[in-house]
């Protein structure tokens, strides 16, 4: 199976001092839910930002579906950042129309359906929404797309347990089986059951890339327990 995401010798340094990502080679297949796991400051978000063209790598090459990061890949990648970009007094519906205009793979019907199930009014103005509700709207904007790659940076951090369940359900129910979901988190227990594969990241380097089942089988413990063992302080 051809890989969807290819990172070849990718490095990122800030000020030529701090090497946030160090010569990473990684190939991610299609049709998997992959956990990008690592402690805070391990380089997960930096890798994700480079995949989405928010950060330029210092060295190396990133390709998605065979294309270098650019307008072509951005049309195929749905990205949920760890930031809230929904500001101003636009309504939720206006933001949906914005996405519908720019992304051919955005489904207005699907997004409105998800909005309804979360009891959020399409007429609600962004500046009247709570932080948690904005995060849910951002997730809908991502999962409302029929993308090749979904990149979710800490999608369940900062939300209540009930919302976590909904978010995980939304990810599983709405992603295209041919697509890949890359989830970055350090809350492994909550997402362990949905992961097909896991990537452990430490100090900007990949220390492990394996299937979640194999880890459980070979190590005789959960991914979360193994993570704690590998990253014990």
């Amino acid at each position, binding site marked *: 199976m051809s890989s969807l995401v290819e990172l070849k010798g990718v490095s990122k340094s*800030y*000020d030529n001092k701090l090497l946030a990502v160090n010569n990473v080679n990684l190939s991610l297949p299609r049709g998997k839910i992959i956990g990008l796991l690592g402690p805070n400051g391990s380089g997960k978000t930096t890798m994700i*930002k480079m995949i*989405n*063209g*928010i*950060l*330029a790598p210092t060295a190396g090459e990133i390709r998605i579906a065979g294309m270098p990061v*650019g*307008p*072509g890949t*951005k*049309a195929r*990648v749905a*990205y949920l*950042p760890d*930031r*809230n*970009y929904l*500001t101003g007094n636009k309504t939720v519906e206006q933001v949906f129309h*914005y996405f519908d*205009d*720019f*992304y051919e793979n955005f489904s207005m019907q699907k997004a409105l359906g998800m909005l309804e199930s979360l009891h959020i009014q399409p007429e609600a103005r962004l500046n009247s929404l709570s932080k948690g509700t904005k995060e849910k709207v951002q997730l809908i904007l991502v999962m409302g797309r029929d993308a090749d790659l979904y990149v979710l940076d800490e999608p369940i951090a900062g939300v209540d347990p009930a919302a976590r369940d909904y978010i995980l359900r939304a990810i599983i129910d709405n992603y295209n089986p041919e697509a890949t979901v890359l989830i970055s988190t350090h809350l492994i227990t909550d997402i362990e059951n949905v992961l097909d594969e896991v990537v452990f990241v430490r100090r900007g380097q990949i220390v492990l890339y394996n299937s979640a089942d194999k880890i459980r089988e070979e190590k005789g413990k959960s991914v979360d327990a193994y993570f704690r063992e590998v990253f014990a302080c």
Partner: protein
Amino acid sequence: MLGKLIKYEWKDTCKMGFLVLAVIACMTLLGVVGGVFPINFLVKNAQGITDGNELSNILMGFTVMTTYMVYIIGLIGGVYGVLIYSGVHFYKTMYSDQGYLTHTLPVTSGQLLISKMFISGVWYMLVLLGISISIMTLSGFLINVLLPEGFWESVAEIFRGLLWDNSEGYAEVRMVFVQLIFFWLFNLLIMPFATMMILYGSLTIGQLFRKYRAVMGILVYFGITFLSGIFGSVASQIVTTMQMLASDMAEDYTAVFMYGFGGYYIQFFVTVGVAVGLFFVSNHILQKKLNLE
């Protein structure tokens, strides 16, 4: 995609644009009510047509002074208001959290820059046009009040001469007049876009710094405008002086104007050149050096 970007950029900024235009309209109205009417009153008093006492004259004079101070501050505020708003809007949508949406749209960095420069340039142009119309309106009213009857007939006579009279005197003035029109058109149609591109380019260069990127962007802007101003002014002085030395101004009085325009065009091309250069530099930074915090 460029059309869509332009559409949303227009929607995002139109409230501010129309607000500034409304302020200019209000300032014009204020200039007429608080400036022209009292001046008319003072002129008629001076001519003995009306009978106003000294206190009313002082009050009217104070009103005129205050009005024109507010008027000038309002117009300058309009120009700088558009510049500052455009800079803040650009920074917020490109380099703050909103940049996470902007830079993941399936568009090129060139399209992003063009859409933002185009819309803010259009607003800047409309504001400059609004200010020109405001000044012309107010001047028209003031001319009516202050200058003797028959002034407009003289102006009409001059224009008729400029358009139809082919005698030597008019032909020379016509050249100056045509240059004036070009001068104004260049300023109105091209400089707003160049000004915005220099602002956006500077803010983008500020992104290359590790810390205080917004502040660094502003400093880069002042640095670039200062240096290009100095360079343009020195270059235009040299060219103007060379042209003046090579001709006899006593023989050709319109030459004074023409050399002035020559100097202006050099400054104009320096500014446009800097703006074009900054477009390519910004595009390169967005493609190869983007580092959103």
